[in-house]
């Protein structure tokens, strides 16, 4: 494993061990009705939307961008699918429709960033605010409850493992494959590190930026479907609320710099799982709600302290700019 990923991985392991100490049954896995159950499976399943969104976010951040709108896009996806279902529509069309809408929203973000040249944080802030309004407009501010067996599968279904986990892993595998087997990964990094040099080398920076925003929106869309399917309802207000922060945090914990360039999908996965485990830990070890945030802060700070470079710092400064 990459050295950069050592600490996030250790943090994750430490959290899991903590859980094991407090709840001895934490690592237990049981098969019931052909489904795999257990706390670890819960962690993975609840973390699936964050993993997905963080994957999209990783690519966006690698191009020096950021996408704040993913939470709102997730809410819109849930709202589109559920209102379609509640109106008597069929689940598959509903979900396809939702993802189409998300693709359009991704195109929109990409347009603002790549074509108009608006700073990504502001460009996506627009959709972050307005998007939730759109989602609420669709649901008229109510929580739309649905009851559909196909739709339920996305977030709560099982094929031995929860479907949500399988989807996230599939997307992770797909992205890893596409970015490694094609030149996309390298071109994304080069646009992120030095946009001007990339332009002069003939890289289609605009298309690439556009692609990553669309991809991020699609990931957010799938995550939104999972979130709403998990509770069989579209909650335009709360679905994916603040998930953009979790996703960015996952990316950053995974060792990808917010300044763009080199990224690590595996790191992002570790980051997202760490965050989800932390949340679950808070519930299982019984941290009182009033102390939850102090606990989280303590964990983050401890991890940072451990991670801090010690010992003989031979090259004192990493030559982030040209060496020699």
């Amino acid at each position, binding site marked *: 494993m990459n050295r950069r990923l050592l600490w996030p991985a250790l943090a994750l392991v430490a959290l899991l061990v903590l859980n094991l100490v407090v709840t001895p049954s934490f690592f237990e896995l049981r098969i019931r009705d052909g489904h795999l159950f257990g706390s670890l499976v819960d962690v993975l399943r609840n973390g699936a939307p964050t993993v997905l969104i963080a994957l999209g976010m990783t690519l966006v951040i690698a191009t020096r961008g950021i996408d704040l709108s993913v939470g709102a896009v997730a809410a819109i996806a849930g709202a589109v699918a559920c209102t379609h279902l509640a109106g008597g529509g069929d689940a598959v069309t509903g979900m396809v429709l939702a993802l189409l809408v998300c693709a359009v929203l991704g195109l929109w973000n990409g347009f603002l960033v790549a074509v108009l040249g608006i700073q990504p944080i502001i460009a996506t802030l627009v959709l972050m605010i*307005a998007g939730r309004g759109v989602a609420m407009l669709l649901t008229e501010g109510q929580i739309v409850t649905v009851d559909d067996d196909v739709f339920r599968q996305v977030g709560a279904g099982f094929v031995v493992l929860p479907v949500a986990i399988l989807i996230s892993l599939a997307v992770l595998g797909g992205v890893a494959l596409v970015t490694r087997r094609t030149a996309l990964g390298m071109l994304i990094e080069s646009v992120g590190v030095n946009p001007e040099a990339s332009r002069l080398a003939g890289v289609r920076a605009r298309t690439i930026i556009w692609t990553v925003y669309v991809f991020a929106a699609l990931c957010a869309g799938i995550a939104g479907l999972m979130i709403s399917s998990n509770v069989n309802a579209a909650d335009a207000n709360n679905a994916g609320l603040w998930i953009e922060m979790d996703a960015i945090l996952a990316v950053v914990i995974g060792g990808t710099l917010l300044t763009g360039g080199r990224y690590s999908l595996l790191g992002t996965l570790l980051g997202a799982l760490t965050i989800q485990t932390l949340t679950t830990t808070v519930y299982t070890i019984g941290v009182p709600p009033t102390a939850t945030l102090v606990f989280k802060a303590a964990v983050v700070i401890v991890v940072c302290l451990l991670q801090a470079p010690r010992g003989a710092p031979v090259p004192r400064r990493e030559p982030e*700019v040209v060496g020699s």
Partner: protein
Amino acid sequence: MTALAVPRVPSRFLPVIATFVVFVLTFGAGSVRYEGFASGQIVANLFIDNAFLVVLAVGMTFVILTGGIDLSVGAVVALATMIAAATLRAGWPAWLTILAVLGTGSVLGLGMGLMIHKLRVQPFIATLAGMFLARGLCFVISEESLSIKDPVFRAVATETIELPGEVTITYSVLIALAVVGIAAYVLHLTRFGRSVYAVGGSESSATLMGLATGRVKVGVYVISGFCSALGGLLFSFYMLSGYSLHAVGLELDAIAAVVVGGTLLSGGVGYVVGSVVGVLVLGTVQTIISFEGTLSSWWTKIVIGVLLLAFIALQRLIVHRQRDL
């Protein structure tokens, strides 16, 4: 627009000027559309209602100019209101409370700055930890909201200053404007300020040029922590209460104000004045919404988004036009 286009302004001022022009245009549009909009008091209210945000945006400007980010400001504001309310309730004199609040904010900022500089933690993570910590401490102090009954705080909060033309402002406005003035002075006329820009332009170059980049990086987070605490005090004047859920998401408003004001998130480019105009822009959007008065909750969000977009698009347009001339 045309009036401003005539004298050739240095292109680095363009984003700020463009933001200002757009602000004036929007305000004009509001005045035409809504009765009672075009009054001096509305402008004054923009400052009264956003004094704390101005102060936060100033602190955030320092941080962003170095290429960093501070997510803790909203939480520190809440913590400040909480500490103020709790200590005043415990009978502390107002001055001691104020010192305690400002001290806490600065120390938190120092902690985050050291984490970022010494431990080389990414600012996003360090300040997020700061945010959790500050918000968490609020809950530890008290889960419920506490009102502030201290006479000094009440006086500062309620007393107004009469300006000509029947316009009144509060002391908070004066404090905020003073902070802006001091910040502009520090950024442009002191070595520390210029180093802030240098670090944002290229940290490695600044180091090789022999600047104390470490001190600058830690310094901006201390400043931001201090500004957050001061903003928190202004917030306590505004609300006369301490509450752990105050100012949720305010950090995004502060960042948005700074960026709308033409500061680049990548660092090295921008002005405090821009951030102030950015705050005014966000405030105007809010004012327009409340004057409209018929928007449902969701249309409110959509309209805020659309207005924000219109602002930025117009700003880009003006900047582009000017550059091409």
